[in-house]
């Protein structure tokens, strides 16, 4: 038998099923957590700016998500908190201690890397035990204590029985959980996760998401995770930090972020939305000189962008003040039909959701009115 065939035979890639148990606080794993304060962090890589003065308060025991498109600085912020990179200016405080001057080793953070970064030549057991074994002799637990802790953690991440496996013999989801257990082994004050589910397929992701929430509730770690998946961020986190181009756009709960987007970027990035260029003049909002039946809500006169969500739109009759457009595309999505509407002289495309049985006239011209909307001033 060739070495490769032997390797394949020894390797079982089937995912162990993750069972979800009712959350309870596990005293063996409970740690003293701390709040984290980020003050005015500025970071540039060479001449390329990555963060422009970011400040953030993270409460003790909170589960917080950093979400944003790639290049928004979310991973940079996470690495600065961990001490894997150092800021050009600004501070990171753990509790009331200034951690800025501390090395990674002394910050006592649990960091889970995007590609897990498991030690490939060590068994699962040794991977998890690593952080305990490298302590200096005064603080190093006994061999028996190490074994007990590793087994407790294996139980927590539901990988009991796999402690002798090597990383190469595990599925993606299993590796992810080993990386998680390894980070928890050192009893970190803060847990930092970089795209924890980024490399997994959709089904495993969903399962691990609920599992992470449950672990968080059981261990109570202050946890910060980075994701580009807004659904993941909104579903999992207590609070979401939306970032763009090295700045924080908004910090809030899922409700805040979704219902009250602070900036055009947040409205655009979170959830589906359509944007139309409008002009506000003496309290009335007009699109291509047609006055819309939309309240300017005290916005100043001048060019503005009208944002609304596809599902906040209903068909309008013949009354004036509606948004009129030509249907360019139509897709069935569950109970609704999503139409692509070409609107105005600029032929801007909007997405709107209508009931699946709504009738669209043969001409393809329809009029709609948004029930909820937001206006943001537009700098031309």
């Amino acid at each position: 038998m060739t070495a490769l065939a032997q390797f394949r035979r020894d390797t079982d890639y089937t995912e162990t099923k993750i069972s979800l148990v009712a959350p309870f606080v596990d005293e063996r794993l409970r740690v003293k957590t701390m709040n984290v304060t980020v003050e005015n962090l500025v970071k540039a890589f060479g001449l390329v700016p990555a963060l422009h003065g970011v400040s953030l308060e993270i409460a003790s025991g909170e589960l917080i998500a950093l979400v944003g498109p790639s290049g928004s600085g979310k991973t940079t912020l996470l690495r600065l908190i961990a001490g894997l990179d150092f800021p050009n200016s600004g501070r990171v405080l753990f509790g009331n201690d200034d951690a800025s001057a501390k090395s990674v080793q002394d910050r006592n953070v649990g960091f889970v890397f995007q590609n897990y970064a498991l030690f490939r030549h060590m068994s699962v057991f040794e991977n998890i035990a690593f952080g305990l074994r490298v302590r200096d002799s005064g603080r190093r637990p006994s061999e028996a204590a190490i074994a007990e802790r590793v087994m407790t953690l294996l139980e927590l991440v539901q990988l009991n029985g796999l402690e002798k496996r090597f990383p190469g013999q595990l599925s993606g989801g299993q590796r992810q959980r080993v990386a998680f257990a390894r980070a928890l082994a050192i009893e970190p004050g803060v847990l930092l996760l970089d795209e924890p589910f980024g490399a997994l397929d959709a089904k495993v992701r969903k399962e691990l998401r609920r599992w992470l929430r449950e672990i968080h509730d059981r261990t109570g770690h202050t946890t910060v995770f980075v994701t580009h998946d807004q659904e993941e961020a909104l579903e999992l986190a207590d609070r979401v930090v939306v970032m763009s181009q090295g700045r924080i756009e908004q910090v809030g709960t899922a409700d805040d972020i979704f219902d009250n987007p602070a900036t055009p970027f947040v409205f655009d990035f979170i959830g589906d939305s359509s944007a139309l260029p409008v002009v506000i003049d003496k309290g009335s909002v007009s699109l291509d000189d047609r006055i819309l039946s939309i309240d300017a809500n005290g916005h100043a006169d001048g060019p503005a962008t009208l944002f609304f969500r596809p599902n906040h739109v209903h068909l309008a009759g013949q009354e004036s003040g509606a948004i009129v457009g030509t249907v360019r595309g139509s897709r069935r999505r569950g109970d609704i039909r999503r139409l692509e509407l070409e609107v105005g002289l600029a032929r801007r495309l909007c997405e709107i959701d209508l009931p699946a049985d709504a009738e669209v006239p043969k001409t393809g011209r329809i009029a709609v009115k948004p029930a909820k909307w937001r206006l943001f001033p537009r700098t031309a």
Partner: protein
Amino acid sequence: MSDPALAAPRTWRSPTAEIRPVRALLIGIAAVFIGVFLVFPLVAVFIEALRNGVGAYFGALGDADTQHAIWLTLMVAAIAVPANLVFGIAAAWAISKYEFRGKAFLITLIDLPFSVSPVIAGLIYVIMFGSHGYFGPWLNDHNIQIIFAVPGIVLATIFVTFPFVARELIPLMDEQGTQEEEAAISLGASGWQTFRRVTLPNVKWALMYGVLLCNARAMGEFGAVAVVSGHIRGLTNTMPLHIEILYNDYQWVAAFTVASLLALLALVTLVVKSALEWRFGHELTGGPR
């Protein structure tokens, strides 16, 4: 048997395969080439060495000058290989784990010994340390002899075998990246612990591979060593130099006897190298994490 996939016509040839006669011709040419240029000369070495029987073979090995040449070769390798081991790890570590100015230039420099003729490598040390060289008078005053002595041979050997370990490690360590090291330090490991427990185990087979090739070259080096050694029998002759002297003295059996030892070293190196590649191939080039 009704599965259409199984009933596919068998005469189909893979798009990248050649027709049978072309294949036979290509394989034939390769086989003849290897036979004439590699296998036959190798066999000839052993035939010539054993021409006068096993007794003469071991008799030639018992000669004092021959034994000294073997001893000197082993000693030079024992100094040059560890030196390049340390250098190779340090260079590969610096190049693959850090970003700095002049990195590309350093990589080119490491390759230099591969592109420089070994004779030149020997000559530069003569120019530096020879009695008429830059440091010659100063070395003379302090009674230090480098050229035509063992230190010169060691220096020339280190120069020639410089790239082997580093060359083997750089691509692998580059591929492995720094994430495991970052993971280790985030778990509280010191720099040395990270190196010893994470970096080194990850490259150990590539390291052995590099050491093996380095050793083979260190023991077999002729050109550079010939320039700096001075060919003093029983003092500064390594095995390759000794073979040449014996050959020029018409001592065919003795020459081929020593040559057979080097050939044997080559064969052992080849076997161990193949075994490493077969067993740890995926770890030599970076495997799953």
